């Protein structure tokens, strides 16, 4: 009972702490954007309209007011969850949150797929290496962990595209779908295809997911490999494993029943830590595969100086990161008896 209430307290305190952090982040982003050179309003017209038309447009968006006034207005809007409307093509006039919500499922699908690949490959490599310590296969696993981090994500993606797409013509090399997508329920093409009962659409979505998830997943798996291997070695060399061995329990049993389970516990923690790296990786992966997600949205809006979009996207992403790391901490607390809040 004590643990549950302390867990609740912990959750609440984390959430409360998140709000000021988000606020500071929003302010920082706002300031940075005003420092950035370039003007989205001039770009809208590209020199075609007379200056008074441009000035009028700027005034309509409130961009001619002093920065402090703009900031106050913006914060007030955000507090009512109104992140404003997009300034530049192609989302000009559309609500920021609406656009973000539209693009988010793409990145979610990519992230989940990549994490699945990363955990599978990484944990496998770590376990295999740890169990066969110092044998050639362990050396290979350790080298894999190091080398995979040395490969730039976009190059890995490009090579996959070359091999599987261009040379072998096996898999599509960009975007989320080739067939007309099913009616949108969640935005996740795989789920929506199942809900619509359309097998071709499901296959299409999976085919498009393979290469990007493989790329991002393999890149992230290196971290899992090293951590799992290190933890496995620690567990295997620990006292209770020795004691079990002394009692005559078979080595295989020790490894599978004790060591594996304990070695996997930090995987959850690693998942949480990886999220920031996942974000950077997803942005590059989306660019490489022309994937319609938040990363592409962010890059395009940085290029077009769509202030509300950049501010909104970063805040939403930060919020997601905070939420996910909090959930992972809670899961960690639930499964790891050593953690106390």
């Amino acid at each position, binding site marked *: 009972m004590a643990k549950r209430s302390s867990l609740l307290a912990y959750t609440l305190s984390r959430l409360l702490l998140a709000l000021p952090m988000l606020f500071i982040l929003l302010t920082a982003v706002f300031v940075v954007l005003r420092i950035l050179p370039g003007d989205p309003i001039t770009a809208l017209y590209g020199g075609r309209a007379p200056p008074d038309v441009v000035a009028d447009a700027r005034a309509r968006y409130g961009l001619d007011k002093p920065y402090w006034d703009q900031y106050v207005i913006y914060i007030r809007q955000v507090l009512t969850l109104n992140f404003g409307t997009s300034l530049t093509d192609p989302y000009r006039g559309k609500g920021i949150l609406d656009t973000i919500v539209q693009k988010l499922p793409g990145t979610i699908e990519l992230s989940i797929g990549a994490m699945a690949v990363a955990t599978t490959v990484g944990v496998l490599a770590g376990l295999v290496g740890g169990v066969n310590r110092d044998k050639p296969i362990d*050396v290979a696993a350790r080298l894999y962990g*190091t*080398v995979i981090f040395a490969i*730039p994500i976009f190059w890995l993606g490009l090579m996959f595209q070359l091999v599987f797409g261009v040379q072998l013509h096996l898999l599509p090399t960009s975007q989320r779908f080739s067939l007309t997508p099913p009616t949108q329920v969640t935005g996740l093409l795989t789920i929506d295809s199942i809900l619509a009962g359309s097998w071709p659409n499901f296959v299409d979505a999976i085919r498009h997911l393979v290469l990007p998830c493989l790329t991002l997943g393999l890149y992230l798996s290196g971290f899992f490999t090293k951590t799992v291997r290190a933890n496995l070695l620690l567990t295997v060399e620990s006292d209770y494993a020795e004691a079990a061995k002394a009692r005559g329990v078979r080595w295989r049993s020790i490894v599978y029943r004790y060591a594996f389970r304990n070695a996997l516990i930090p995987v959850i923690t690693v998942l949480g830590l990886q999220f920031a790296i996942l974000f950077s990786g997803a942005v*590059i992966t989306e660019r490489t595969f022309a994937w319609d997600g938040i990363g592409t949205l962010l890059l395009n809006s*940085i*290029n077009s100086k769509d202030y509300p979009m950049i501010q909104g996207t970063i805040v939403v992403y930060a919020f997601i990161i905070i939420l996910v790391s909090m959930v992972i901490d809670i899961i960690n607390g639930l499964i790891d008896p050593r953690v106390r809040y």
Partner: protein
Amino acid sequence: MATETKSRSSSEITWESLLGPHTFFGRILNPMIRKRRTLAGAMTWIGLFLLIAFVLIAFLAPLFTLAGLLRDPEQALCGSDYHYCFVGETRLVNQAPGGLALMGTDYLGRDIFSRVLFGTRTSLEIMSIGVFLALLIGFPVGLYSGYTGGRLDRVFVLVMDSIYAFPSLLLAAIIAVILGKGVFNIGIAITVIYVPLYFRVTRNHTLSIKQETYVEAARALGAKPWTVMWSYIAYNVIVAIPVIFALSAADAILTAAGLSYLGYGIERPTPDWGLDLSDAQTFSNAMWWTTLFPGVMIVLLTVGLSFLGEGLNDLVNPLLKKERM
């Protein structure tokens, strides 16, 4: 009183005084030589070899071009003998690798082999600026902050942790957009990303060494804070630096390549691996040679630095725990 033996006064420099077991280089080289048969040792030597090879390439490439042994990376090639184009000639665009162009030509008819070699210069320049500046800023600040403690330390930790928590590529991209393109500007962006890392590592080591008895003894004996910091603490912490240096250098290469790929890095037509990969994807999509070779170079250099860093980590860090003055 006459001395019999030739005394080794402090003004003499011997090999031992440079590379002996108590010097900076010595403490790194000795484990490397002693444990060269282990995986860690082998990795360290391979990494060092790769790094030296790349540095040599960076320095020698322009000289080779001057001597005519290497083509100019910014000149287009024409004709059946792959000479530099004259006005009115058709460029040899996207040609497959062959005898006259070892790695083929790119979308503007330039020799990929020379572009790939010259790209080393750009990457190493950015990396050096970034990582050296990060070291120059992060190390002293971490040392001072860890030693002094108190409110200043807490402020520094807060600032550094916030920078560290922010996704590095995004932060670098934003700084790059503000500062503009160019080797130096990207170097600054890299610096900002890695200062927190150097700060953290230095501070952590400082904190643990601060507790040691010999440090307390030195302070009790009246040594000034700066002396304690530099002669005692820094002396021990600094051995951890090459590891971080190599690892952050590896990461810096990747970040710089990523920035160039996204379009924030270097201005064309300077040869740069990330930029050439981005152009290859746009203009030479099915031509494998435009994508393979620049990428392989990135991987080799990064792997070399990673091996160096990780190998040193395994060799040196156990040492750090047992180090005594």
